[in-house]
């Protein structure tokens, strides 16, 4: 159990597509991650934090009803690591988020897991 790549890692998935969200959850759980929340809407961060720490957040940029940059800024403000997972190009990122970790869709599970593992190294 503990030898899996993301063992004990607490992750939030923000993704508006149900299938991709489910798929992503499945992949991460296979790797031992604890998916704290999977949501299509921007969540209440403080309510989530009240349930425990968050090691990393996977963020889809376009949530159908708008872009999720403000949430990313909120995470940045709380020093919570996040990865953009999106069909847009990195050029879409606003200046203040330009250097953020970024995965282009469609990203296969191995790449997602590898990046999350890299970002949470030492955190768990």
């Amino acid at each position: 159990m503990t030898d899996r790549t993301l063992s004990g890692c607490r992750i939030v998935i923000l993704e508006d597509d149900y299938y991709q969200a489910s798929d992503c959850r499945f992949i991460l759980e296979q790797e031992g991650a604890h998916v704290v929340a999977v949501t299509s809407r921007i969540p209440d961060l403080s309510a989530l934090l009240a349930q425990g720490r968050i090691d990393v957040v996977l963020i889809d940029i376009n949530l159908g009803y708008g872009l999720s940059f403000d949430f990313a800024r909120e995470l940045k403000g709380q020093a919570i690591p996040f990865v953009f997972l999106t069909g847009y190009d990195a050029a879409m990122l606003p200046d203040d988020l330009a250097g953020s970790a970024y995965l282009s869709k469609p990203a296969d599970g191995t790449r997602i897991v590898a990046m999350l593992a890299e970002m949470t190294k030492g955190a768990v």
Partner: protein
Amino acid sequence: MELALRHSENRLHSLIEATSDLIFRMNPEGTLMEQVGGNDLLGDVEGESDWIEGFVVAADRAAVREAVDAAVAARTPIEIEHGYVRPDGKVGWLYSRAVPVFDENRTITEWFGMSTDITNRRLTERQLVHGAQMLRVASEIGKVGLWDWNVETGEIYWSDEHYRMEGYEPGEVVPNFDVWAERVHPDDRADAEAKIAKAMESGEDYVNEYRVRHPDGEIVWVSARGRFLYDERGQPVRMLGAMIDTTQRRREEEWQKLLVAELQHRVRNLIGMVRSVARLSAPSHRHVDEYVDHLIGRLQAMGRTQSTLTRSPGRSVDLSELVREELLVHAVQDDKCHVDGPEVALSPHAAEIVTLAIHELATNSIKYGALGDTGHIRIVWTRGRKDGKPWVSLRWQETAPVRKTKQTRKGFGRKLIEERVPYELQGEGRFALHDTGVLVELEFPLSDAGSILDTRS
């Protein structure tokens, strides 16, 4: 005395011969004219002649005659410009001035005058007028704003179009640097001024694209090009320039950029979604053939939503049309189904999910339920309100004598209804398996499309 007079006459004669003008005299009535010296502009004409008939172009004769008659009657000098026929037969222009000579009774004895050929001046004037007209028409048609800035005096000339681009009525203000600068968007002002200063210093063309802010808040993008002119000491004296409105072009460029980004997003997202659907479709099938059939059926349902959306210009889909088309695709006969509900326009996103749901239910029903047997289905929907928002409630009800298998596992269709509807549409989905068949209820808020293209996928 006589010598002095002769000397004076000689000098006058020399002057007459030296002039490039024609010196003439006319009878008191001004009808007959005789060249007395100077430049024989009219050619080799001896003695008196009816000059108006002989030399004035037909179009100007009446006006000339009128002016001459008026001067004769008023006994005042004549001053006229008119076309004349040159000795070579070509038409030229003359400026003529004649003064009356009186006797001691104040009666006009003759007229004495001179004519100047002004053909070149008239042609130049005409070219100038022509050029100015061309420029005006071209700049108006091409919607080009022109400026001419006198650097030394600070005066600026703006064409009418320039006033409009700056958000003024033509002539509303006296243009100057400050009047211009005031309309430049504050964020672009320093840069525009720096570019002008650089052009002035370097002699290179001024090239700038910037925003102009109108008093009503409207933002207009302009592309301006200008050039400084310098005197012999190298001091800038004038700056001439032209600018065009590029707002529409920029808007289109932005739109195109957005479309490309959106398309890229969609294609990538769609591939991601297909991959996830493929994976999620897998567990329920032991046989590859069956799995492939199901997967293709789902992808085709997704494809149908896309083609429906392409057909509907309003980017919304009529629920009734969607349901009927989906039943048609599955070859459900009219006597086996009852479809009823008010007109409901679905967002592309909702349309995609409902299409897929009907597809799953129909496929399932053909295989296990009412549609594969002697039963029938009722698909009815209503509109309502919840939390101040319009909602739609759709019900799929099967009635069949006996259901072929008991389905216990939560399959793709059931997940779609129970999980995807709440997840993506913030609605509710219920799936119940009765002895007589499946009963499904879908409820979700009706919302506008959030994105610029069809579905958000």
